[in-house]
């Protein structure tokens, strides 16, 4: 078990290392650097050289990569190209806001999705399943900016219940984001609920068709006891992985939602820094998001392994 754990941690670290190389060389391969972007394209001669000198861009790429990676490991993400501000500080607030948005959506979406997934799975092909499954397809296929626009139209323009745009500045404490955060949370909840629901539904259907459920039925175990004691613990295991992917998505992929609602999170910062060609910030955000993705997926795999005795012994035997 311990060896297994170490192996997975090692592989995760390797993936993050590869990501960092991809990010660094990707930015490196693009024409121009943060100095030409900052000083505009026409910048030539002394000014450009001074800027490059100041940012250490006149050294070789390998040396700069090692330098960047080493300080990133220590939590120092460098300075932005324009403001000369510490990126760790800049990103910190945004990350906090993104975490807030993710936490609210998860708190609302995960229990709802699991509940609805079990309901649709148990009452497969009944009216309630058909209704919810159809709604789920709509919720997950319609582009996020479309559902966001429709919800703004409904809740803030026609009904006037919720504010349709976030005006709170990035550094404000979490409590000040209410009630502005509610509409973005609602949109995100819709999308993630649909995904998790479908996953849980198919898993419940599969488990309920299993031999041991049939055996329990034949033995005369009451239906609800079968559902809660025999089926659900197995059916909900795969949900861990989907929830993990959802967390990664919430922290890195909700750019469009953040732009629509003007929410000061990591996603909007990403767009802004790409538009400004503030490459050090782009690199830093990419690295954070990728690390979160790898970390969350790794935790999900380990959690599944711990929760599932069969998988555990299987791996122990093999190692």
């Amino acid at each position, binding site marked *: 078990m311990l060896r297994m754990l170490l192996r997975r941690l090692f592989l995760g670290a390797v993936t993050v290392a590869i990501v960092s190389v991809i990010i660094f060389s990707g930015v490196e391969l693009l024409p121009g650097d943060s100095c030409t972007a900052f000083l505009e394209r026409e910048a030539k001669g002394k000014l450009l050289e001074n800027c490059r000198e100041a940012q250490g861009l006149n050294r070789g790429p390998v040396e700069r990569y090692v330098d960047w990676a080493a300080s990133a490991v220590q939590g120092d993400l460098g300075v932005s190209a324009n403001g000369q501000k510490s990126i760790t500080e800049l990103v910190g607030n945004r990350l906090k806001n993104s975490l807030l948005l993710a936490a609210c959506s998860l708190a609302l979406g995960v229990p709802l999705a699991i509940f609805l997934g079990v309901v649709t799975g148990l009452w497969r092909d009944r009216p309630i399943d058909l209704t919810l499954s159809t709604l789920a397809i709509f919720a997950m296929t319609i582009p996020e900016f*479309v559902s966001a626009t429709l919800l703004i*139209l409904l809740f803030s323009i026609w009904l006037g219940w919720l504010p349709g745009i976030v005006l709170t500045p990035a550094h404000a404490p979490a409590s000040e984001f209410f009630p502005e955060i509610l509409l973005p949370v609602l949109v995100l909840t819709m999308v993630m609920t649909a995904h998790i629901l479908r996953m849980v539904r198919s898993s419940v259907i599969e488990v309920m068709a299993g031999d041991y459920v049939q055996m329990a039925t034949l033995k005369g175990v009451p239906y609800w006891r079968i559902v809660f004691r025999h089926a659900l613990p197995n059916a909900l295991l795969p949900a861990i992985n989907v929830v993990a992917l959802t967390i990664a998505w919430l922290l890195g992929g909700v750019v469009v939602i953040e732009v629509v609602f003007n929410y000061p999170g990591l996603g909007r910062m990403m767009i802004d820094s790409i538009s400004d060609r503030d490459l050090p910030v782009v690199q830093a955000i*990419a690295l954070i998001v*990728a690390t979160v*993705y790898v970390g969350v997926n790794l935790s999900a795999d380990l959690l599944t392994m711990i929760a599932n005795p069969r998988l555990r012994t299987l791996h122990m035997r093999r190692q």
Partner: protein
Amino acid sequence: MTSIPSVPNQNTRLARFLLVLRDVMARPSGAIGLALVFAHLILALISPMIVPYDYKAMNSAMMLTGPEATHWLGTDHLGRDVFTRVLLGGREALLVTGIATPIAVTWGGFVGIFFGLVGGRIDEVMMRVVDAFLSLPWILKMLVLIVTFGTGIEVLIPTLAFFYGVPVIRIARAATHDVVARDFVSAARARGHGRMTIIRRELLPNVLDTLMVEGAMRWSWMLLAFSSLSFLGFGVSPPTPDWGLMIADARGFMSFAPWGVLGPVIALSSLIIGINLTADALAKALGIDRAQKAPV
């Protein structure tokens, strides 16, 4: 004597295609989905001939007017006919994704099958690289390229084709793994066939179903990406009509002119839902489980 399954020739392939098509059409989701997709494709082809107005003709005398007999969906903030622009708004998206999707599935599928067959160290390393690629949000990867190289279709098509092919590698590799251990692959190896021959004659026919379903799903995700990029202002450039861009433009006037949003919203949603329903029905018809798909 038991009959030996013959090598599929043109006729049986066509027959199988028709069988699958009939199965897809027999499902409600498939019938609705295919109808929506075909309606959109036909509309994209004939819309330039049937639109009532010039899509870029501005009219300062009628800005943001409501739906009426002459302008069925009203006019936008520059006085252009919304109905005309909705009819034309999917052409660019369908053209770009229609070219990029087959490229993505082909290259991703080939690389995936190849590494699934080869296996070993290279395969292991390759999968780490794919994992690393997937851990970066799509929008970041695409935007960095688009901001650098511009937003024309000559940039968008290769960019979409490249990034949407990467996840296909994983799918194709997993599907290949299920096949590679079977006897007929060992037999082909024993006969001394080369890798390319094994891929073409033994693996590809068995992985093709998975790739088809994957292609349909990729297509809808690509459309999603394309319209999101337009919405954010990184896709097609005005005055070309595009649903994503139209929604972005009309959003500002939503409080007093909601019809400007609803037209493109319905058009875009119906196309994406149509593709998804078709993909779902296709997956069921081919017996491939797609339910365990998480947001990517």
